[in-house]
């Protein structure tokens, strides 16, 4: 057994200090990344991937039609007008689809927003592939201007057959204060 000190009590203490420091580090270097990786990989909490989807889909599954519902919510204190261009779309798995979200900044000053997606049922999150999304980046808007923000997505052909309706919800956060920091990962 490795010994730090010839005094047994000091030896035990030194090892336990290493354990305590290690557990403190464990929170930051293991728990946080592991949580994010697991949520991304398993779609827990309805999280969709923060990266654009690039893999090719082999053909369109015309045998079934999936109803996609879009929901837009403003986080507390966010003054923008924010809403989906289409409230409902009917799509085939494997097909590439495009829609837009409207946003308008009613205040005189420029602001930066960040949209956070969530998919329900959460089981569907890993089958909801976005090839382009305004939620990948922070969205700046000058005062009293509006914008149309694009969203392109593909529903995976492997989507479980019992899922017929998917709801994609965006919550819009005001990140003007933290804009410029490289904190947004999705």
């Amino acid at each position, binding site marked *: 057994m490795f010994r730090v000190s010839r005094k047994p009590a000091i030896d*035990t*203490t030194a090892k336990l200090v290493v354990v*305590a420091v290690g557990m*403190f580090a464990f*929170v930051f270097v293991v728990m946080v990344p592991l949580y994010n990786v697991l949520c991304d990989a398993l779609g827990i*909490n309805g999280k969709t991937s923060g990266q654009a989807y690039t893999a090719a889909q082999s053909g369109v599954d015309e045998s079934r039609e999936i109803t996609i519902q879009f929901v837009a919510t403003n986080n507390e204190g966010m003054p923008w007008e924010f809403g989906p261009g289409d409230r409902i779309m009917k799509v085939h798995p494997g097909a590439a689809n495009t829609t837009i979200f409207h946003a308008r900044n009613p205040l005189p000053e420029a602001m930066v927003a960040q949209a956070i997606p969530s998919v329900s049922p959460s089981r569907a999150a890993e089958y909801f592939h976005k090839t382009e999304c305004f939620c990948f980046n922070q969205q700046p808007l000058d005062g009293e201007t509006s914008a149309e923000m694009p969203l392109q997505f593909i529903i995976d052909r492997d989507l479980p057959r019992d899922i017929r309706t998917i709801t994609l919800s965006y919550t819009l956060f005001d990140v003007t204060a933290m804009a410029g920091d490289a904190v947004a990962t999705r």
Partner: protein
Amino acid sequence: MGDHAHGPAKGLSRWLFTTNHKDIGTMYLWFSFAMFILGGSFAMIIRAELFQPGMQLVEPGFFNQMTTLHGLVMVFGAIMPSFVGLANWMIPMMIGAPDMALPRMNNWSFWILPPAFLMLASTLFMEGGAPGFGWTFYAPLSTTYAPPSVTFFIFAIHILGLSSIMGSINIIATVMNMRAPGMSYMKMPLFVWTWLITAFLLVAVMPVLAGAVTMMLMDIHFGTSFFSAAGGGDPVLFQHIFWFFGHPEVYIIILPAFGVVSQIIPAFARKPLFGYDSMVYATAAIAFLSFIVWAHHMYTVGMPIAGELFFMYATMLIAVPTGVKVFNWVTTMWRGSLSFETPMLFCIGFLILFTIGGFTGLMLSIAPADFQYHDSYFVVAHFHYVMVAGAVFSMSAAVYYWLPKWCGRMYNETMGKTHFWISFIGFNITFFPQHFVGLAGMPRRIPDYALQFADFNMMSSIGAFIYGASQILFLYNVVATIVSGKPVSDDKVWDGAEGLEWTVPTPAPYHTFEVPPKIDPAHAHT
């Protein structure tokens, strides 16, 4: 020896600079009792407000501060330091060691506690008030929406976490290195065993708590987004980290209580503890399981069904080693020559009420049922049955049991028994009705409630005042014993008591076991 000092130093410096495990244990015990009174008075304000429906006495914001501080002060200020104090007093005397392994660190781990709680209590007088986000301080309530005083709260948690880590390292170093020759691990008294395992839990999870509050600090002041969805973080992450600490924490609180009960029941049943080995293994099993059940506190956050099932079954599994323990205590009493002095009464009270708390815990572990019970008064009733009737009752038992050894005077038995019965009745009047209002849908942490809960809440409040008042009797009894109790001179204060602590003179001299005692190799565990 020559001019080597044997007695304590004089005056205030004795307490400030002491490295004596008995002095430090005494300070821990008195400090924790002071915190018990402080946290108890917060509870009295809560129950006074809830005496009748409608807003009666305090503002809703202040009510939230009371529930928050009541939880924090009781968990971190009263229960945990009281058992650390007991460990300081008893572990060296139980294993035949002259003192703790790291006496100077021992002094530090106590003396950083009072400033931490002074800081926490001072937030009550700050602009924006004290933290009001519950003792579980879920983000974003404790980050985005927190009062400015949250920074002081974070610093206080850091300090008391450091104190706990130092205290537990000291206990592990003492138990592993300073046992008298011949005292193998499986001969240690069960209180020493449960504390050894508790100390390992503390070293493992207090840094996790420190990590959680550090992340809060960084989110609030340094622009990170660990718990902020806008920046790519996730508030649910906070709950996972908190309960990864929080569930082992509840066993940190209850395992030393198990140890106390395992010492006292054999003494008053006049039989050795039944199933010593299984007690040790059950304790270790509970400690291991405590790391893999944390998400049963958060069934309603939206977990995958596989997660709910895993955490449900793992949680139910804990009932097995806990059942082993309850079985062993009952079997120790079976056909024993029982007598019912105050410590034994508190242990039997513990046994009955803790088991009720265990059963309600089993109810809460059932994920589909928990959706109904979650954040209701049923949960409040459950954890007070295990925290108060579990930890606090066993602590009262410990004080009555060892007080004659500590100060060489006998407490007033009639007053002790009166304390027990008032506590037992007051406790049940307080918390038993809370099961009913909880199942009927009364949420926890609210200052007002629907009219149909009025009668049970009034009962609860009356019970709480009775229970609170009984603690004043306890304080009086202890002080009266120390000042003018009937002197006892027998080494073995209780005829059925076993263990090395009963081989030293009464009252225990300032230094004990400067020469290690001889352990009879044929003698079983003590």
